[in-house]
């Protein structure tokens, strides 16, 4: 596992952009779970490692979402290159599905379109998506994809597949956010150790130390929740209720860590952290953008709350997933 993390570090240290993508493909990391037989534990290491480096590469979208969904639906996709998924809910009208999906990550790649109707999830690969170009706060590609397809041209799978697709996305974002927050923390520890004011480094001030400790606490708590989600996916797969539970809890715990960690990181950096030339915002703004994807923190909090309210004893939901064991 350490070797995998080191490989990610090494690739990110020596390449960015298209070159990084090629390196990720050459080493098999681009399709680790779909092509290399690796599992969620390995995927989590790669995703958090890439996020630590603020690497711009749609590995989650390609490996965990698009290839998986295309396989599930029997849709053929290119063997190489970045992929993404665009998900929409709509109703069939005159045998066609029409609509626009917003905030699609990496919309200029091949898009695996997933349109959920009342009775099925309709899947198709779209090579020349009508994408409107845009980006998130950290500069990662985000855009709108319009679609207008005949139902007969798409492959239908059980609508429950959509739930797993969203869960996979949320799971990936949790691991990515932990990586981004780790990087923000490292940068902040480094900055406060170097920046001198009043004749001493910022980190010598007790108020600063307490902020650093608060930041570390939020991150460790988020990491612990994400680790449970990784274990659940590795043990039981993404379709299992244990994974549903652990991802739900992690999405809330990780989501609630983003604001305090981001706020403290910027506060302790001073204004330099928001300038174009500085690296900090590339981690903090990734975390801020990712946190709303595949369901907001509040949506997952509501879901976890409903689980606890429905349980005979809410303590059971704290200990493990609420299901007949």
């Amino acid at each position, binding site marked *: 596992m350490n070797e995998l993390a080191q490989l990610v570090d090494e690739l990110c240290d020596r390449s960015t952009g298209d070159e990084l993508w090629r390196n990720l493909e050459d080493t098999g990391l681009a399709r680790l779970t779909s092509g290399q037989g690796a599992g969620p534990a390995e995927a989590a290491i790669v995703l958090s490692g890439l996020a630590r480096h603020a690497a711009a590469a749609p590995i989650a979208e390609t490996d965990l979402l698009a290839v998986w969904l295309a396989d599930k639906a029997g849709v053929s996709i290119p063997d190489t290159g970045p992929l993404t998924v665009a998900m929409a809910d709509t109703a069939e009208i005159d045998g066609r599905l029409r609509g626009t999906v917003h905030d699609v990550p990496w919309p200029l790649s091949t898009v695996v379109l997933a349109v959920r109707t009342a009775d099925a999830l309709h899947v198709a690969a779209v090579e020349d998506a009508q994408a409107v170009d845009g980006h998130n706060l950290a500069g990662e590609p985000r855009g709108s994809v319009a679609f207008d397809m005949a139902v007969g041209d798409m492959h239908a799978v059980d609508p429950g597949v959509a739930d797993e697709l969203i869960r996979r996305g949320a799971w990936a974002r949790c691991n990515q956010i932990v990586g981004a927050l780790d990087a923000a923390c490292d940068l902040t*520890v480094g900055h*406060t*150790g170097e920046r001198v004011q009043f004749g001493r480094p910022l*980190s*010598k001030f*007790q108020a600063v*130390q*307490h902020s*650093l*400790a*608060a930041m*570390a*606490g939020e991150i*460790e*708590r*988020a*990491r*612990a*929740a994400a*680790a*449970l989600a990784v*274990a*659940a996916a*590795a*043990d*039981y797969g993404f379709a299992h209720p*244990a994974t549903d539970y*652990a991802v739900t*809890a*992690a999405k*809330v*715990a990780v989501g*609630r860590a983003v604001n305090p960690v981001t706020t403290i990181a910027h506060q302790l950096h001073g204004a330099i952290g928001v300038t174009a030339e500085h690296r900090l915002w590339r981690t903090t703004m990734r975390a801020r953008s990712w946190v709303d994807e595949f369901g907001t923190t*509040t949506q*997952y*909090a*509501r*879901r*976890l*709350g*409903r*689980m*606890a*309210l429905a349980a005979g*004893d*809410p*303590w059971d*939901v*704290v*200990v*493990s997933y609420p299901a007949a064991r």
Partner: protein
Amino acid sequence: MSDFDALCANDGELAQLRTSIRDFLAADRAEFGWQPAVDSWLAKWDPDFSARLAAAGFVGLTIPADYGGLGLGYLHRYVVTEELLAHGAPVAAHWIADRQVAPALLSYGTEEQRGRLLPQIAAGRLYSAIGMSEHGAGSDLAAVQTRATRTDGGWLLRGSKVWTSGAHVAHQIVVLARTSPLDPEHRHAGFSQFIVLTSAPGLTIEPVVLMNGEHHFNEVLFEDVFISDEDVLGQIGDGWHQVTAELGFERSGPERILSTATLIFSAIRALGDVDDGVAADVGDLVARMISLRQLSISVARTLADGGDAATRAALVKDLGTRFEQDSVELVADLLDYVQDAEPLRALLADARVHSPLFTLRGGTNEVLRGVVAKGMGVQ
């Protein structure tokens, strides 16, 4: 074995143990009628419960069988501890002896001390207090001035301790005292630990009463209390090391997360049909508990494997006790949506009185954040 179940402390033997302690608690409560309480590990002193719990095999879990214990692992104890707290059981009488004194005896005690004290602890019949803080030595524990001086066959203890929980009902107090004069260059040197019977001549106990009239804390005065050599705990001069070495266990345990669990769970159970906003508030509370518990268990596993988790243990206590505090007012808000909130008001009132203590006892959160910062390499 599944990693997921292991992370939930719910695999194999641990899951069985969890079921048996739950069964015991349900049956015992049905028969003896105790009410689940907040902060029960400080506030609910019930010697009969402690004895029944021990008889059923849930005290002295990590004490070896040779000394009357069960010889189980630290995670077994973790499971029993969290179940007791989650159900608000009246555990205060045996708590400190089982949690702190037994491990100290196993690490530093003499064979004679172990043989004499551990079986009684495992039977839930020995109650101990810990005498650390003094009027001038709170967060700065190295400022302790209580002094033990050498005399024939033992030591004479002189000084005072304060905030000594349960001393007025305990059999003994484990006291930290200076045995050599303060060396300003090595403030942590020259401390030793003594096991002092509360019945010893020269020892007096005065109550320190809480704002609501509850009596848990005490001031303990030692006026040349004689302590025989048999009651020295560990090595003379090693007291500081002995009291700090196992802080990780104490700082990261379930009692730093679950002091208000009874209030939280009672409130959630009392909520009927609620709107999405309230459901999200409940989910946020539960997510904080789950993530804190996960962090706490991961520290417990590291410590049980002999690893170093000092920084993360301090983090658990800082985060966990702040959660305990926050939870009280979050629940107060939830009560707005409970049809008949009256039965919960008493729990809420208790929690509000005890809440300031959560972030003070066993080391203030300000001190803990200093420990964390040091662990991050910035101090």
